[in-house]
């Protein structure tokens, strides 16, 4: 079985085949290794390299952003998509990438407090667009690009889930 795995903007083609009881041949971008894989709980995997004995523990969980998985390893966690399921994880400013039509997306569940623009407004990149409150903090979400406000899909007071499109910039 072949998977496209994307982490941190880099995509890998990974092929998995069964090579024995709990043992799998795994080929990453053409390099093959044999791994002993044991399930640990619902989300955990203990991986042992059959050749070197190197041990890794990874946890694969759904995240609060639809379509995204979180891989946890040694105290850090990275977002991941399998077979190009569109992740809508926003960038550091609550933005996506900077080309074409872009959405300002709620990065966490919360409540819309203020909308700082009106439909049709010209906006600059990183201009504040909407303020979402969660956990006693107001978070200003900014425009991913310079452009024009095409659509506002929420009103102040709306409760939003993570991943919800709030404003579309074109």
């Amino acid at each position, binding site marked *: 079985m072949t998977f496209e795995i994307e982490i941190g903007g880099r995509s890998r083609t990974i092929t998995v085949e069964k090579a024995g009881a709990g043992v799998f041949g795994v080929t990453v971008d053409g390099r093959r290794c044999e791994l002993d894989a044991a399930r640990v709980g619902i989300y955990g*995997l203990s991986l042992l390299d059959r050749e070197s004995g190197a041990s890794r523990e990874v946890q694969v969980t759904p995240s609060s952003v639809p379509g995204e998985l979180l891989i946890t390893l040694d105290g*850090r966690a990275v977002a991941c998509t399998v077979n190009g399921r569109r992740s809508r994880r926003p960038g550091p400013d609550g933005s996506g990438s900077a080309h074409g039509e872009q959405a300002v997306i709620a990065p*966490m569940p919360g409540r819309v407090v203020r909308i700082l623009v009106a439909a049709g407004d010209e906006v600059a990149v990183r201009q504040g667009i909407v303020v979402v409150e969660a956990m006693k903090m107001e978070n200003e979400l900014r425009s991913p690009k310079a452009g024009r406000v095409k659509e506002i899909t929420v009103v102040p007071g709306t409760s939003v889930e993570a991943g919800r499109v709030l404003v579309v910039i074109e």
Partner: protein
Amino acid sequence: MKILVANRGEIAVRIIRACREMEIPSVAVYSDCDRDARHVREANQAVHIGPSPASESYLRIERIIDAARRTGADAVHPGYGFLAENARFAAACRDAGLTFIGPSPESMSLMGSKTAAREAAIRAGVPVVPGIDSPFAGDAPDDEMARAAADLGYPLLVKAVAGGGGKGMRTVEKPSDLPGAIQTARSEAGAAFGDSAVYLERRILQPRHIEIQLLGDHHGTVVPFVERECSIQRRHQKVVEESPSLAVRPELRRRIAAAAAAVARSVGYYNAGTIEFLLDEDGSFYFLEMNTRLQVEHPVTEMVTSLDLVQWQIRIARGERLQIDPDRALTPYGHAIECRIYAEDPDLGFMPSPGLIRGLRPASGPGIRDDSGVGVGYTVPVFYDSMIAKLVAWGSSRDEAIARMRRALAEYQVLGIRTTIPFFLWLMHQPEYIAGAYDTTYLDRLLASRRESFNELDASEEDAAAIGAALDAYLRASTAAAGQNGGATSLLWKRNARAEALRG
């Protein structure tokens, strides 16, 4: 005695633990979204006090007093936050015949006012940050303000009397900037607090935040403890605390502790409290404010003194005399560090990351203490502060404590939501942190220039993560396929096996 814990989260769990150890029954209170919270499950009794927003539950004095009445609780522990520093609440408990586990409402309201507390410190002979004695009149002429500023010396701070959270506060480096700074500080303070009065204070460059924990009993004894160093702050919020401070030698420790105790004694303070100081590079220290409650960071003091502060709070409230050797309270044994684990995404500017906790493996092992308020299956709500746990590491030396903290952070798994664990793992490797060469401005300066992710993996780790995702998808696909082919058989087999087990 039966104690109602008027709080939630890790601090409610912490207080309930003390109650259990002392064999005192405890009563939890909870809002709608906290029905399945850990503090509810660990208390002996629990009372629902309203909808999820704190203003309709954890901040409702009458509902909490009523919960105490209904359950026959005769004492209330407020924890920190919510009503902990609300003198009206302390007074309402007293009026209802409940023992409030904390200071008197009178000392709470006295020390809760920044200006009154500053005056109390001055009366007790404790230095405060140099500043002008009274705020400027609204129509004070520019040259009067310029003279006052010149007497104080630059750089200085223009501060709103009613200020807080950095609002109505301006740094002024040179005389020509003064009029503009006063004007903006006034209009900001007027808009934010409805009071545009401002005053001037000398700006201490690169100060450390040092605080002294105190316990006072109802018989006039006040015991100060070894200092806590809380200079690692993000936007004026403490994120890492430790004890002792590398900047405080025993002689300085004795002087700061004596100053703190003098302030507390002068206002007849009892129960737990903390006095915060700014420590200048030259070793001078200045009274900042007093917190009239248990602090979030109290565990670091407990770890280096082996004393249980919450148990002592309860014993003091029962009228017991403090029986703590003052030398022991002032002499740290080893070193302790605390990291506040927040449900926040450090890669998104520390944006809150509430949600379902799908898996949890707290760190444990030598020298590690985990004060947590959450469990697997709990949804971190959007309504409250985002701190979910405090991880504390103790070592015989500071280096050992740092090594244990790193090990514990890598061990700690919180699955399903983002947390600040990766940020702490990064911080515990920063050369300035390791050297102890930091002040209250350090972390904000460091973060301002940082663009990289805190979750960076090296090439081999990233391969392992990708392989894990692929194997997970593979195994789930095979399980699903097996379910389709042999699902009925396997279910039947399971049922039979269970029946067998029950018969056996």
